[in-house]
Structures are given as structure tokens and as C-alpha cells.
């Protein structure tokens, strides 16, 4: 086991941490797929409103690579296909039948896995609709089906606030997890990094033989991109793949059972979450179902994914394919009298400019910007927190000046899009979004 020490980063002390209790939710009435929330793909619909689908029927495919298929996470009838601006497909909603029927897929056992050809395994995964769970760094696009990755990174970490602890979903699933890891080993010619947080490690079920890296550090130390940055020895490894740990279980389930797996464990957290905790539900379940119908009088914001990296989502919408947490945060927006000169015993800050730096308790936070946008004053906080040693204050400036070569040499593509630079910025500059957009447009240009 290799120990990785990530010194930079930041741990948000924020209230609303979900208790580690798992509740099993009843079956939702609807589930949905959200093609809009899967980055880079160009979806081509294979169904129409009114069609009847089984669990595992094809809903849409990616025009860029038709081997990438996205399957129905439930059996029932397509009731709605919602489009957004410019005809982007937002949601494909399926009303669930009482009885579940599955499309059969090939399945293999442990011995079969040893002897199977790698190409056949890729075929099984892409037919089974779970290939998109494997994603390739640095752009975090779906992994190419025709390439062998230098390595696959599996991070058991959950250092971003309010994520599902690995011991919850690994509980009772250690065999399945081991099977999933063997699949990844096959795909990557035995180059799999399995990393766990040092503090989680003692609570994990006995996986010690499997874990290759132990990570010490604050958010986002256990992000696959950070693990890659800290372990890579050559530029060839930049295209490593990664997969969420919960998704390893899905892949293992598909290959073992021959049926499209639909289970998901989702963390529900945030100060205003009515029932914080972990819930066992389905892929694509409605947000209101997961949060168990909160009826807040306070204006709240619903976030899918993490507090740093997630996106805000309508409460009537559904949880996306990749996301495993729902947060409900106070929207804020109240104006404070002489806000800039308050002692701030309860104001969260990375800096030491508030009395909160001697307050050890977890603090309430809302979505207020806490200041107006100003020019960068070179305070240097962003470089202090950047886990991959980019100097965001310089990199975002060369990005805005269209000096793409220079920002690439600064390590733009190493950016793991953790959002810490934007979080700490006193000038309230959307540094992370600027870098993210630069990465994406560079990728589109390179691949198109």
C-alpha cells in the first residue's frame, strides 16, 4: 500500500452532514434519464412517447460512437420527453409498471472472466449500457471503447461534503466489489489503482489486499484526477480512466446477473434536508422522492452531486446517471447590514479574516456570493488550495487572454474541476468555470 499525502485542499465545516443510516425507499412512480447532464454526448433517441420499455431497453445512443448506449433504468411506459432550449433533450420520463421485466444480457462468472477476450468484455459492457460509467481523464468524457487505458483509478473517497461513505455501499457487497475490480483489471491489463481515505480505511470491510493507495488530505485529495497527478510518472498516464466506486458494483452486477442493475444509494444532506441520511433507491429516481417531499418555507436550493461540483436541479426533476447525492441548501440572498465589517464568528472562511477561524464547530452556509465581483487582487489563496499545483490566478488570466498554449503549459488539463479556487476567491471570480470551459472547448476543437 502506498501512502499519498495531499497537502493542499480545504475541508468545509458545514452543517447538514447526513447521519450514516441507510433507509430503503419504496419504489418511485417514475424514473428518468437526463441526457443533458451527461457531458459531451450527442444523444439520438431510440424511443417515442407512449413506447413501452423493459429494464435495459435502449433509450438513446451517442451519435459520436453508437456503441455507447443508454438503457432504461425501469420497465414501463415513456410518458414524457422534455426538451430544453435548442432542442436539447432534458428528460426521458418512464412511468414504472408494477411488474419489472428485464432485457436479458450475457452473464459470466469468475472463471469465465479469466478466460474471456477483452474485446468481448467491452462488448458486454457497452451492450449492457454501463460502459458510460467508465470515464477518461482529463476531460472526464466517456472512455473510448477502442482503447486500452494506461490505468483505471477507483477512489473509495468521499471527502467532498455530504457524500455516501464507502462502507455503506460496500457493506455486504465485498465479493461483488472484488468481481468488479477483476473486470477493471481485465480492461486495463491489471493496472488498477484503488485508493481509500486514511480516515475511512478502518471502517471499510476487509478489502486491505485490494487497496493500493491510502490518501491523507482534505477535499479533494481523493479525487481521481488528484490521485493521478500525485502518482503519475509519465505523460502517457494522463489519459487514465476512472470510475465511481458505487458504479463498480453496478458493472459487477450486470456481468454477474445478466440484468441491468437499477439500485443506487444516494446521500441526502444539507441544512434544510427534511430527512438527512442515506437512501437506497433507483437510478433516475425523482428528486422529490429521494428527499421525501420537503415542504420548506425558507427558499431552498436543490443540488445534485456535490456542494462544490454539483449542479442545481429543479425539485420536480430527476437524479442524473452519475450523481449519488442530493443536497438541500438555503438559497440565502438576504442583504446584511454592514456585512463586510462584521466580526463573523459564524462566517465560514478559508482566510483568517473572520473570528470563525477560532470557531471549531460546523457552520451554516447559504448560497450567497458574499461579495461583489472585482478584479483579481493577487491574494494567492487559489494557488494555496489547488490540489494539482496549478496557479489558478495566472492560468485563468491567460485563458481569458486566449493564450491557450500557455494555459496548457500551466497544467490546465490537470485541473480536476474541484471548484476550490472559485470558492476561496475574495474577488468572486468564477475561476473554475473559466478553466472548465477552456478545457471543454479545447477538447471539442481537438476531437472535432
Amino acid at each position, binding site marked *: 500500500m502506498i501512502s499519498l499525502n495531499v497537502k493542499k485542499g480545504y475541508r468545509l465545516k458545514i452543517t447538514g452532514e447526513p447521519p450514516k443510516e441507510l433507509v430503503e425507499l419504496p419504489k418511485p412512480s417514475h424514473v428518468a434519464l437526463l441526457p443533458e447532464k451527461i457531458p459531451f454526448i450527442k444523444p439520438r433517441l431510440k424511443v417515442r412517447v407512449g413506447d413501452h420499455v423493459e429494464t435495459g431497453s435502449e433509450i438513446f445512443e451517442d451519435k459520436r460512437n453508437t456503441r455507447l448506449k443508454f438503457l432504461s433504468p425501469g420497465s414501463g411506459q415513456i410518458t414524457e420527453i422534455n426538451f430544453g432550449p435548442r432542442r436539447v433533450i432534458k428528460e426521458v420520463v418512464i412511468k414504472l409498471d408494477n411488474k419489472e421485466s428485464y432485457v436479458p444480457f450475457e452473464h459470466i462468472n469468475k472463471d469465465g472472466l479469466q478466460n474471456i477476450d477483452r474485446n468481448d468484455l467491452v462488448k458486454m459492457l457497452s451492450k449492457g449500457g454501463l460502459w458510460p460509467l467508465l470515464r477518461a481523464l*482529463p476531460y472526464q468524457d466517456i472512455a473510448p471503447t477502442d482503447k486500452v487505458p494506461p490505468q483505471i483509478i477507483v477512489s473509495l473517497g468521499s471527502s467532498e461534503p455530504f457524500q455516501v461513505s464507502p462502507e455503506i455501499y460496500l457493506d455486504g457487497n465485498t465479493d461483488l466489489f472484488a468481481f468488479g475490480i477483476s473486470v477493471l483489471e481485465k480492461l486495463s491489463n491489471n493496472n488498477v489503482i484503488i485508493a481509500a481515505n486514511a480516515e475511512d480505511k478502518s471502517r471499510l470491510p476487509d478489502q486491505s489486499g485490494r487497496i493500493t493507495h491510502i490518501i491523507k488530505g482534505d477535499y479533494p485529495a481523493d479525487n481521481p484526477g488528484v490521485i493521478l497527478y500525485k502518482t503519475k510518472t509519465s505523460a502517457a498516464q*494522463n489519459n487514465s480512466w476512472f470510475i465511481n466506486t458505487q458504479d463498480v458494483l453496478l458493472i459487477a452486477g450486470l456481468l454477474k446477473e445478466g440484468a441491468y442493475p437499477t439500485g443506487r444509494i444516494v446521500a441526502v444532506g444539507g441544512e434544510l434536508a427534511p430527512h438527512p441520511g442515506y437512501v437506497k433507491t433507483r437510478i433516475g429516481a425523482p428528486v422529490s422522492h429521494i428527499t421525501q417531499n420537503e415542504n420548506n418555507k425558507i427558499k431552498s*436550493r436543490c*443540488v445534485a452531486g456535490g*456542494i*462544490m*461540483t*454539483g*449542479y*442545481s436541479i429543479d425539485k420536480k426533476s430527476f437524479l442524473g446517471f452519475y450523481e449519488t447525492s442530493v*443536497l438541500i*441548501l438555503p438559497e*440565502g*440572498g438576504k*442583504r*446584511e*447590514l*454592514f456585512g*463586510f*465589517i462584521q466580526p463573523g464568528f459564524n*462566517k*465560514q*472562511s*478559508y*482566510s*483568517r479574516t*473572520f473570528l*470563525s477561524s477560532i470557531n471549531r464547530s460546523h457552520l451554516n452556509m*447559504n*448560497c*450567497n*456570493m*458574499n*461579495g*461583489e*465581483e*472585482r*478584479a*483579481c*487582487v*493577487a*491574494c*494567492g489563496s487559489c494557488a494555496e488550495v489547488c490540489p494539482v*499545483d496549478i496557479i489558478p*490566478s*495566472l492560468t485563468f488570466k491567460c485563458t481569458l487572454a486566449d493564450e491557450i498554449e500557455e494555459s*496548457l*503549459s*500551466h497544467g490546465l*488539463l490537470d485541473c480536476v474541476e474541484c*471548484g476550490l479556487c*472559485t*470558492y*476561496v476567491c*475574495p*474577488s*468572486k471570480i*468564477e475561476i*473554475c*468555470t473559466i478553466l472548465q470551459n477552456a478545457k471543454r472547448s479545447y477538447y471539442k476543437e481537438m476531437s472535432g
Partner: protein
Amino acid sequence: MTNLLNRFFDSQRKYFEPGAKLERLNALFEAFETVFLATGETTSSGPHVRDSLDVKRFMVLVIVSLMPAFFFGLYNTGYQSNIVSGLSPDFMSAMTRGLRIVMPLVIVSYTVGFFWELLFAAIRRHNISEGFFVTALLFPMTLPPTIPLWQAAIGISFGVIFGKEVFGGTGRNFLNPALTGRAFLFFAYPVKMTGDAVWTAVASSKETAVDAITAATPLSLASATERFSSIQDTLSGSGYSFMKLFVGNYPGSIGGTSALFSLIGAVFLLILGIISYRILIGGIIGVLATGILLNIVATEASTPWFSLNPSYHLVMGGIAFALAFMATEPVSAPDMNKSKWFYGFAIGALTVLIRVFNPAFPEGAMLAVLFMNLFAPLLDHIEVKIRLGKRIPNV
């Protein structure tokens, strides 16, 4: 109270919105409004929560840190003036006298500076950055108390326009705006900026002695020290003990004489993490190291400056103030950590070298800071290059 203010600003906002009559003055409205009420804007993309620190608090804390030096400056200016004018040197009358000398300068600095800031904000449609309020306080603190108000107005205008706004405003300036303004006055009106006479404001009322003799500053005493005698002896002969120099109770620029109160401000900013300890400590090391080096090479034939105890360099003149508040200004300082060490060190070393080798400029701190401001981008460039060379490329 909050509701009342909210209603007031909401009712006035329509005059400043795009398309309205006073649209150009939106920056003024925004600046005024956000002093009273913090923004209610919420995040539109991730991260969904944001740090509580903003530039407004950042700059206000710098102003707070300047307060000890500023109030001591008020007292000291009044005290020196009253002594020379033969008036009572007790605390209250010194303070009132100091207020009467300094406040006009501060008011001129703020109003004239704010006019330019607002003009550029209106034309370029950017917001008024709080950095200006620090500049406009720093600037009069570096001036001699006898400076005519019109010169102060010209100085702050030059500092704001050419030190900052022509390059795009706060955050894009490569020179320290307050020192740019001072340097302009220094070279444009040397009569009012140098010499022994300018550092004490003599009251011009009839009762006071007409033949008042203003005291010399420690730096000019040191420069005037004759060969084969020691500067320390000259200073203590004139009543300048090390402690007195450290506290700053001697004629000089309004806020820049006191090493003690500059240090208090700097420690406050260091605790809050606003300024870089690298620049500050680098600067102190630079002064001391250069001083020691000169001690070592000193011969009997060299000027008395060579054999001066290096710690005296830190308490005389404006170097303490410059290191605490000017060199550490983050925008014109380098961004990279090792560069900051070098930058601070070079400012300290250059200040001593200018004092020792250049009889034309008794004080070198201002020129040292401005000179190193020019080198900050180069230092950054070199360090970034070295650092990027160590990265495993990812393109």
C-alpha cells in the same frame, strides 16, 4: 433598519439602471449601496457556497491596520509642529494641531482620487474597487506635512491615473499607486518634498517665534555626519535614541516615521493572513544583511554610513512603513512565493544601498519599492518557468 435601507436603495436603483438617466453613475450607486448592505446575489453555478471574505473586507482590514500608524502620525505631526512653533506639546493640543494639518490632506486625497476613480468607472463601466480607499489613505501618510494641498491633489491624481487606471484599474496595476503619486511629487516639486524644512509644519500665527528652527530628520543628520565620527553618536547627540527612532517621535512624513506602529499594523495583517510574511521578513533580512555586509567592508576612510549598526536602518526614515504597507501590496508584488522572498530582500537591500551610496536621495525606500515593482513580473516569470519545467506535461 435593514428594511428601511433596502427600500431606499430599491427605490433609487431605477435611476442608475442601464438606459436610465444616471446609468453612467451606476458604479457610484453600487459602491455606496454595498457599503450599507452586503450583496444579496446568490451563486449561479458550482461551487454553490462561497467563502465569506470579499475584497471589501480585505481592503477595510488594511485600512484598520493603518489606523495605529495614522493616529500616531496625527499626534507626531502636531507635536513636532507645536514644539517648533513654541506651542504646548501636550497630547490634546498636539492632536488637534495634527488634525488641522493632516485632515485637509486626507480629504483632498480622497475627494480628488475618488473623482478620478469615479470618472474612469463611469467611462469604462467597471465598479469602484475598494483598493482605492487604501491608496488614498496611504498617499497622504507618505507626504511631508508642509506639502501644499494643490500638490497633494496633483500627486494623488497622477497616482490614480498613471499608477493604476490607465492600466485597467485595481488588480491590473504594476506599480504601487500611492508611491507612484509620491514619486511624481518627489521629482516634480523637489523643493516641497526634500530638505530639512519640509518635515515640520510651523504654525504661522503671530505669537509664535519667527525664527523657529526646524529639527533635522534622522536621515539627513546621518548623511551630514562627518567622516571619522559615528552616526549613532550624532543621532544621540541630537536626542535621537534608538527607542525614540523606533517609536517614531521625530520629524518626517506624516505616517511613515514610526517603526513601532508600522510593525503593529503589519503583525495585525500577518495574523489575518492578508499580507505575505515572505515579503516582510525578506525585507527585514535584506536591510540587516546589507547593513552587516557594509559593516564588514567598512574601512576608516569610508563614510560613516558603512559602520552604522544595521538595526538603525530599520528604524530611520520610511523603510518600516514601506515594508509593512507598500511592499506587501499584493497586486504590484510578485505572485509566486520564492519571488516574494527575493522581492522583499531586494527592497530592503536597495533601500540601504541608496541611503549609503546616493547622497542625492536621503530616503531610498520609495524608489526601492517602485524599482522592484517593475521587476515583479520578471521574477514571477522566471519562477513560473522553473516550476512548470518540473511538471509532467499534459497537453
